[in-house]
């Protein structure tokens, strides 16, 4: 698409359907990244509007422009044009939940004072009729002097009207800017502010301007109201900083003696203005009839049932991951085998074939196979988030979370960490208390992320017997998987408690949270979210995991002399192609290939490293190969599967029946002939992966979020220690229990 001719910011309270509207407007043309300098997710998309391209910037959900959190600060910066790399928007779309319009208009009352052409979208319009409410959008538009559009964004209703309204405010933006600037000064909520406050604002503004500071009136207001919290402080040149804070505290004490209560007067003035403007335009049925949402809510937040339901839901999710994903996983495994045999047909035995088949296909393929489970997991998390259950779960869990040093708000970041710790750690930004946030951030990597899932699934499928209960609906494998998923969370409890007790003692946190109505998840939003994650997963498999697979393959292939094995393979394939049925010749060739392969892998760099590592990992019940695989999986956990895949593909017995990694692992032996992988080893590996910090990107994210190297190093050390000790205990316990 061409260069955008205009930039439009989309802002609204959380849970107003902002993402639905954004997706409806931009379709697939969205880019997700981070704002420069801060790790707030930046989402921009493009739409075509009467032949022109318009860029839409999706701002983080916020209740106010007071900028108390990083998210709110980003919204303010973008709207004021202070955000690097984003032009000051030409217009703003404010999206409001029509069923809760008055409170949603609070943010609108602040946005409109910025003097940008503004479009007000009343979303969830379909609910107005069903709840018996009546709203007059035409009069609201007249009262506030902005165009108003009613939408049901999740059903893609009213989207064309939004486009038309947007086009019209953009084309008339030149004269409208003046008009709305004039409008802002005469008729806005701030004209309801007390005279004393307005005089103090003007005085301060004049003084700042006399010092050549370019600052807008609303920014001076924020300085006065939010005091030291005010985000606009950075607009003040440092040589004026102490003078400004002096002026501010004097002004605030003058205001206090004049009876102006900060921050009460602002909210009172704004809500009074909203009430006055919407008087008679919003009708609610007297004695609100209990909605289905209320009835559902009564049960889901019930003292005991709520907790029970929560545990049950988690169990169902992890059971269905094993059950539902098994079919598509078989297909992918089939495709992988087909690709490998195709390659074998085209490329003769030698380093190139080995690189392609044993390195790339075995490595990348063994990770891609877990795509179905990732999709299912993200789908579930997306549904829970979108339907409004997540905030209930936070409500139900808050008390227990706060006793171990976090808050109910830690719940969502931790829950998303079950998919991936990176978005989880980034989501801790919604926790306003810094100490709660640090504790949450440091335990988030313990939650069982989707990269651990493949490790568990592989071990469980290979070594836990497939016993089914309740006519096949509950499987032993599913139960073990569920327990493994819980393990990290259980360990996180004492860890969080210790962190809070010894590292982050301090002030109690707050839990002021909206519990939005339940709603049907929007499939558009769901699909695009899952798609984003799938794309990220495939990209990882194609880059990071691809590279590691090739490196591991090289370490396991070199420096040995492969000519004898290659020659034997060529002769064997020659015999098979000629359909010679000389079984003795085939068997002797196979044997020499197998012997050669295991000798080669022992002589390789990987084999050497494995022998060096073996004393360290022996207490965990591992052999050197597993040790190397674990070491190689430092960049990302799922790499262990790729590595095992490569190691066992290279060293595997050439036997037509044992093509899967599962089978190859089952067949692996110690030099004395005992199997390497027992149930105890499998559990030891799983426990290690449940607790270790084997994910470079997570550690990088912690570094970025805390802006220090101390915490990622701390995370790595404490998690690796936990993992080693945990795996050792598990190995010994399971082994004793098995005897």
């Amino acid at each position, binding site marked *: 698409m061409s260069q955008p001719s205009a930039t439009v910011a989309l802002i609204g309270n959380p849970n107003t359907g902002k993402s639905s509207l954004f997706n409806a407007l931009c379709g697939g043309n969205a880019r997700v990244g981070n704002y420069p300098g801060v790790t707030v997710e930046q989402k921009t998309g493009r739409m075509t509007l009467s032949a022109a391209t318009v860029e839409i910037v999706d701002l983080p959900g916020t209740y106010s422009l*007071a900028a108390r959190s990083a998210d709110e600060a980003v919204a303010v910066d973008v709207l004021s044009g202070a955000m690097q790399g984003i032009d000051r928007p030409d217009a703003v779309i404010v999206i409001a939940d029509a069923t809760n319009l008055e409170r949603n208009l609070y943010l609108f009352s602040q946005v409109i004072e910025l003097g940008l052409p503004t479009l007000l979208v009343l979303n969830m319009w379909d609910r107005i009729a069903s709840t018996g409410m009546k709203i007059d959008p035409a009069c609201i538009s007249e009262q506030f002097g902005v165009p108003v559009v009613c939408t049901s964004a999740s059903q893609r209703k009213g989207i064309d009207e939004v486009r038309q309204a947007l086009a019209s405010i953009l084309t008339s933006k030149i004269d409208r800017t003046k008009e709305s600037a004039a409008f802002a000064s005469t008729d806005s909520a701030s004209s309801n502010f007390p005279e004393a406050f307005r005089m103090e604002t003007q005085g301060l503004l004049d003084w700042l301007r006399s010092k050549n500071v370019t600052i807008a009136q609303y920014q001076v207001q924020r300085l006065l109201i*939010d005091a030291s919290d005010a985000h606009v402080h950075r607009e003040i040149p440092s040589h004026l900083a102490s003078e400004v804070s002096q002026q501010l505290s004097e002004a605030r004490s003058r205001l206090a003696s004049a009876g102006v209560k900060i921050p009460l007067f602002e909210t*009172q003035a704004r809500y009074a203005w909203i009430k006055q403007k919407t008087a008679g335009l919003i009708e*609610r049925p007297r004695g609100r009839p209990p909605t289905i949402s209320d009835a559902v809510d009564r049960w889901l937040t019930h*003292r005991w049932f709520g907790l029970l339901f929560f545990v049950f839901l988690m169990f169902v999710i992890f059971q269905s991951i094993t059950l539902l994903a098994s079919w598509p996983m078989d297909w992918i495994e089939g495709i992988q085998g087909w690709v490998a045999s195709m390659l074998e047909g085209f490329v003769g035995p030698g380093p190139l074939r080995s690189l392609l088949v044993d390195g790339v296909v075995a490595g990348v393929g063994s990770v891609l196979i877990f795509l179905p489970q990732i999709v299912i997991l993200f789908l579930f998390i997306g549904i829970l988030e979108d339907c409004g259950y997540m*905030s209930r779960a936070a409500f139900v869990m808050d*008390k227990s979370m706060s006793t171990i040093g976090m808050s109910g708000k830690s719940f969502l970041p931790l829950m998303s960490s079950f998919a991936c710790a990176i978005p989880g750690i980034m989501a801790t930004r919604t926790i306003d208390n810094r100490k709660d946030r640090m504790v949450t951030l440091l335990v988030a990597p313990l939650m069982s992320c989707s990269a651990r899932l493949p490790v568990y699934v592989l071990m469980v499928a290979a070594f836990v017997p497939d016993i089914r209960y309740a006519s096949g609906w509950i499987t032993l494998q599913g139960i073990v998987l569920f327990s493994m998923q819980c393990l990290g969370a259980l360990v996180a409890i004492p860890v969080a408690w210790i962190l809070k007790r010894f590292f982050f003692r301090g002030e109690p946190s707050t839990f002021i949270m909206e519990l939005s109505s339940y709603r049907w998840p929007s499939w558009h939003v769901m699909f695009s979210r899952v798609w984003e994650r799938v794309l990220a997963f495939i990209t990882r498999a194609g880059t990071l995991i691809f590279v590691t697979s090739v490196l591991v393959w090289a370490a396991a292939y070199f420096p040995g002399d492969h000519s004898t094995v290659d020659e034997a393979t060529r002769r064997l394939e020659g015999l098979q192609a000629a359909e010679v049925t000389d079984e003795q010749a085939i068997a002797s060739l196979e044997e020499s290939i197998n012997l050669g392969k295991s000798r080669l892998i022992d002589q390789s760099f990987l084999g050497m490293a494995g022998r060096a590592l073996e004393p360290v990992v022996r207490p965990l019940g591992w052999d050197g190969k597993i040790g190397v695989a674990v070491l190689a999986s430092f960049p990302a956990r799922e790499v262990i599967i790729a590595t095992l895949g490569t190691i066992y593909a290279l060293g595997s017995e050439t036997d037509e029946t044992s093509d899967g990694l599962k089978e190859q692992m089952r067949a692996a032996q110690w030099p004395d002939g005992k199997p390497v992988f027992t149930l105890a080893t499998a559990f030891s590996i799983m426990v290690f992966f449940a607790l270790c910090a084997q994910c470079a990107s997570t550690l990088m994210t912690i570094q970025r979020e805390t802006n220090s190297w101390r915490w990622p190093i701390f995370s790595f050390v404490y998690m690796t220690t936990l993992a080693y000790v945990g795996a050792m205990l598990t190995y010994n316990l399971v082994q004793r229990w098995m005897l």
Partner: protein
Amino acid sequence: MPTDSSTLCGLQSGERGQILSVEGSDAVAARLLEMGILPGEEIEMIGAAPMGDPIEFSVYGYRISLRRSEAARVRIEKQP
């Protein structure tokens, strides 16, 4: 645990009150006010989470969850 009948903590499930004031002038007070917990508004207690904390309220046409410590800062007049 504060169950002063003159604050939000004193409400039982289904009881209503009229907000008189929000104590303090810090960020917590500002957030409560922004969220529509304003003097003069009517507020209803919906229910408490397991272990009695936090508490769900209905105010300004929507649902909000507050910890007891936050609810204790909101002075109300109980309504029959």
